[in-house]
């Protein structure tokens, strides 16, 4: 029934970790203003602009620039899988030879059901795995089927691996990049002056 999810779609080359981009005070203020989401009003960018003391076009232009620079990966509706019937989620981890990790990472990230695919360091002896994927499914068996498909399609039969199903969710929300609650003073600081 879920056959459509099992396509392997070749993807463009992975984006390596971007060198940390230096963001100006105006960009940081904008990020702080939108990190919890845009207001659900007719003119959300104007509402953000009013908060920041700059123009609506300026907010739109800067968000577009942040997207262009790859700082914003995507802009849109962020869903919560569990509430939508995707009750099973697993972190699937692999211990891949270092020289093959990029190639396999690209292979695994080509599946539509993979929502994250990262290389991370090993921490021996507790943690031998260096490639991480997140997959969601309606139930455990759906996730395991996807797992088997990944092994088959990317040739991972002999690679040490583990499937870490989630049990309880203790917390889930978007990351807060700017500590807005801690530093209300910054808003009154001279970021304003028409510069958004």
């Amino acid at each position, binding site marked *: *029934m*879920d056959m*459509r*999810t099992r396509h392997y779609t070749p*993807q463009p080359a992975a*984006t390596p*970790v*971007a060198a*940390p*981009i230096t963001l100006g005070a105006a960009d*940081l203020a904008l*990020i702080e203003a*939108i990190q919890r*989401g*845009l207001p*659900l009003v*007719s*003119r959300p*960018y*104007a509402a953000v602009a009013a908060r920041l003391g700059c123009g609506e076009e300026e907010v*739109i232009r800067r*968000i577009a620039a942040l997207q262009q*620079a790859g*700082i*914003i*990966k*995507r*802009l*849109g509706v*962020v*869903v919560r899988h*569990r*509430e*939508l*019937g995707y009750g099973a989620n697993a*972190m699937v981890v692999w211990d891949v030879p270092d020289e093959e*990790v*990029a190639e396999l990472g690209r292979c695994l990230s080509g599946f539509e059901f993979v*929502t994250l*695919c*990262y*290389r*991370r360091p090993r*921490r021996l002896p507790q*943690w031998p795995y260096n490639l991480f994927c997140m997959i*969601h499914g309606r139930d455990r068996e759906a996730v395991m089927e996807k797992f088997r498909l990944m092994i088959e399609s990317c040739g991972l039969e002999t690679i040490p691996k583990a499937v*870490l199903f*989630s*049990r*309880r*969710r*203790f*917390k*889930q*929300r*978007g990351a*807060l*990049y*700017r500590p807005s*609650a801690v530093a209300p003073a910054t808003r009154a600081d001279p970021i304003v002056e028409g510069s958004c």
Partner: protein
Amino acid sequence: MADSAIMQTASTMPLDPLEQSLLNDFQQGFPLSPTPFAEMAARLGVSEEQVITTLERLQQRGAVSRVGPVFRTHSIGASTLAAMCVPETRLEEVAELVNRFDAVNHNYEREHRLNLWFVATAPDEAHLQQVLAEIEERTGIEVIALPMVEDYHIDLGFDLQWT
């Protein structure tokens, strides 16, 4: 601490076609025009108000976390995935302590010897390390930090596949 309450796995909530479309078709490419909801409404053949109220409702029901940006990990600030091996009897207590940190945005129990997995995000590396050290100190349990080294995934959202 409503945010950190332990949540049950929800059963599928019934969704009408407008809700399904808003959830599935607008995970990326949110219009960068002055009236983005009106633009979505025009595409869907409904009113702007319907789009806004439906999104509000989906947010209240927990299906939508937010309408807005997903930032690339590491492009702003510092963040890491971290794992802990927590004795079963202490799991809730430790999870709650971890949740209390504003820097922690995700926190899950997983099936492994390392059974508590969380993501912490802070304005800079020093702040992040301080959070991890504090969690370690207050729980007496080692925190294994596993920061991202490379991202292979192009985030196009998630196909919800209504069937």
